[in-house]
């Protein structure tokens, strides 16, 4: 194919023709052609030192095999990644990795997602030839969340380069030389104070770097993986929630070049135990005198609708930045239909944000909840202080979604004529509610969050909620239907469209458009402003 532009090149990789911009490396061009090239030290988010020697490929005309991670594609190259020479080279290199590698698979956390296992299984030698003693290093606690096993380490130096180039916190280095070389910190100085250091366990291809939090917790092949959005601040890092037996075992980052690259912060990564809280509201509860009595949904909804139609006095609606756009959007609509004052929400904010120096788009933002920006776009006002306290007073009719009201006195809402609480756990203040409706957390439903810069991102359900809990948008949708404000949305996608029909900021967006990468809100976005301020 003729290249009119001089800044693109065409080559063939395993017979597949591919045209790429000049300067593209073979490994990147191959990815475009759908061909994966085995590698360890290369990582698209880091520099490429070409030292693991796994990615050596045959380039017709070159006498030696070329490292695909640094060699750029030239016009007319014929590249073979599966030729006999390339296969032999990979097999030989894998053998070198195995000779000092301990047979730890039965006790290694990485087993099941280990790149050494994967490549050896695919192309490695079937039997070992080492008859002599292996080199031993032992384990080391690097401080922070990291345990290091020197025997398993394949010296790819991804961790060193991540700390140096991305976290810009030079805390790891290679010490010694040759076969005695190993990764270490500066003696007792550890990784404790570096807020992004746990990312090194994701990029470590083997089980040399382990998260103390996940140590010996679950086998990887028992885990279910669900794409989601980190709820712990307004950055909206794309994550994967890994669960087993309906319990969240860990969070992992998911790549999104517009939001978080390949990374996430340590704070967000380890804030998941709240999703596993088991003291949940089990069933809809209706007040009968001093007691809350469990009931089925239908009579509860009917009773609530009666109360709503007969309401008197001022109406206030309180949302939650930990709940989705769909939940909060339909709550705001309900408030509007009922003639409520401006809806409000409260959120915790840290003193400052913590930026990842090597990828400044990513920071642990000040607002420690996912959907503050979404709430603002839905017309909510933020009230209360930076500890998420105060700002809420009881009124005649009070509808609270998600906010646990933990700071409010135990008699809060006792004087309200109608107090509806849609939540997860029964905090003391909420016990004064007339209707307590169990709803799912974000992890238990499909929905969207809007991050600090106005990016709407989808998440999927990772957990089963308690059997009688429902997504808040579903409950609110039914209530709206009962108030003759349109049919109840049947699924989250329609709930989202319904929100867009009431709020211009969300108009025109659909789940298809958002996809897995997110889409910006219709209103102009000023990145850097907002974001928790």
């Amino acid at each position, binding site marked *: 194919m003729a290249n009119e532009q001089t800044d693109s090149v065409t080559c063939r990789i395993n017979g597949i023709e591919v045209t790429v911009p000049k300067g593209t490396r073979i490994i990147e061009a191959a990815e475009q052609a759908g061909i994966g090239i085995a590698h360890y030290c290369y990582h698209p988010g880091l520099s490429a030192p070409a030292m693991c020697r796994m990615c050596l490929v045959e380039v017709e005309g070159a006498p030696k095999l070329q490292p695909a991670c640094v060699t750029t594609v030239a016009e007319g190259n014929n590249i073979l990644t599966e030729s006999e020479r390339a296969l032999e080279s990979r097999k030989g290199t894998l053998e070198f990795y195995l000779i000092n590698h301990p047979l730890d698979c039965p006790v290694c956390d990485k087993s099941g997602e280990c790149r050494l296992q994967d490549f050896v299984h695919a192309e490695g030698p079937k039997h070992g030839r080492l008859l002599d003693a292996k080199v031993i290093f032992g384990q080391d606690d690097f401080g922070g969340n990291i345990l290091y096993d020197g025997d398993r380490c394949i010296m790819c130096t991804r961790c060193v380069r991540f700390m140096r180039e991305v976290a810009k916190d030079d805390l790891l*280095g*290679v010490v010694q030389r040759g076969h005695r070389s190993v990764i270490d910190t500066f003696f007792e100085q550890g990784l404790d104070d570096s807020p992004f250091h746990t990312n090194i366990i994701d990029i470590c291809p083997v089980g040399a770097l382990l998260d103390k939090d996940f140590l010996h917790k679950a086998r990887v092949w028992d885990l279910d993986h669900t794409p989601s959005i980190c709820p712990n601040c307004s950055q909206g890092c794309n994550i994967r929630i890994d669960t087993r037996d309906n319990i969240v075992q860990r969070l992992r980052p998911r790549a999104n070049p517009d939001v978080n690259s390949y990374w996430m912060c340590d704070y967000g990564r380890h804030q998941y135990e709240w999703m596993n809280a088991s003291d949940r509201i089990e069933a809809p509860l209706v007040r009968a005198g001093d007691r809350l009595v469990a009931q089925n949904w239908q009579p509860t909804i009917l009773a609530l609708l009666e109360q709503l139609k007969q309401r008197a006095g001022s109406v206030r609606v309180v949302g939650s930045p930990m709940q989705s756009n769909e939940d909060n959007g339909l709550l705001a609509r309900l408030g509007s239909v009922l003639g409520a004052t401006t809806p409000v929400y409260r959120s915790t904010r840290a003193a400052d944000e913590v930026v990842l120096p090597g990828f400044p788009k990513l920071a642990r933002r000040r607002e420690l909840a996912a959907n503050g920006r979404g709430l603002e776009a839905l017309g909510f006002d933020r009230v209360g202080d930076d500890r998420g306290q105060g700002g809420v007073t009881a009124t005649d009719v009070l509808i609270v979604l998600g906010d646990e009201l933990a700071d409010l006195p135990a008699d809060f809402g006792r004087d309200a004529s109608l107090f509806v609480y849609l939540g997860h756990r029964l905090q003391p203040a909420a016990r004064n509610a007339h209707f307590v409706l169990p709803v799912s957390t974000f992890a238990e439903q499909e929905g969207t969050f809007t991050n600090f810069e106005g990016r709407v991102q989808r998440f999927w359900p990772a957990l089963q909620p308690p059997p009688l809990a429902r997504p808040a948008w579903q409950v609110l949708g039914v209530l709206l239907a009962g108030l003759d404000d349109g049919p109840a949305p049947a699924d989250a996608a329609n709930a989202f469209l319904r929100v867009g029909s009431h709020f211009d900021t969300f108009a025109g967006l659909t789940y298809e458009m958002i996809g897995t990468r997110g889409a910006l809100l219709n209103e102009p976005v000023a990145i850097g402003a907002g974001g928790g301020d």
Partner: protein
Amino acid sequence: MAEQKTELRGGNDGWAGERGDFANLSEADVRGESYVGVRPLEGRAAGGACSYPYQLAEKHPDAPLFEGPYHERLEKIRSRYPDAQGALLPVLNLAQEIHGWLSQADMDRVAEELGLSPVYVRGVATFYTMYNKAPVGTWLVQVCTNVCCNLCGADEVMKAFLEHTGTEPGETTADGAFTCIEAECLGACGFPTVVQVNERYFENVTPDDVPAILERLRREAPKQER
């Protein structure tokens, strides 16, 4: 001082440095007037004497680093390189010259002085053989046992040193006088076996020479506070 020269298997007479005479030769013996026979405390001019990885016999493990004339040398070294990182190896040499080895505190101090991270300095210091990561004796005896010297009896010379000092390789004698280690090729393969003691080369060493060499070193040792 007893005459050191014995019948040399290599057939070559010793010259300066080969029989350990280098430090004792007068300037007239070697060349001209201004031969630098002792370590230059001041760095002199242009690039001539930046810093060497001296293994001085006289060590001051508690002396402050980079003060006085050493501070001047540090600045002179810094001026020879386009950035602070380039000066790292010479500055580590300077630290080892004063203390005799590089401790964790030394690496930290050098890192601070040059604006580098401590773990980076540790990585560089542990890469190179000549930086001592532990204290060594007054005399660091490095016997080349690489192939050319090996063909001419280096293993026997090493054994002789270990026997006469009563140590294992890398171990320091009880009186702190000697540490004997094996070294890789010292670049004097025509004069086997080559032994480097601190900054001097002893060439054409045979096992028979070992007691005399050790005796001479004991006589020359500076009095150290222990």
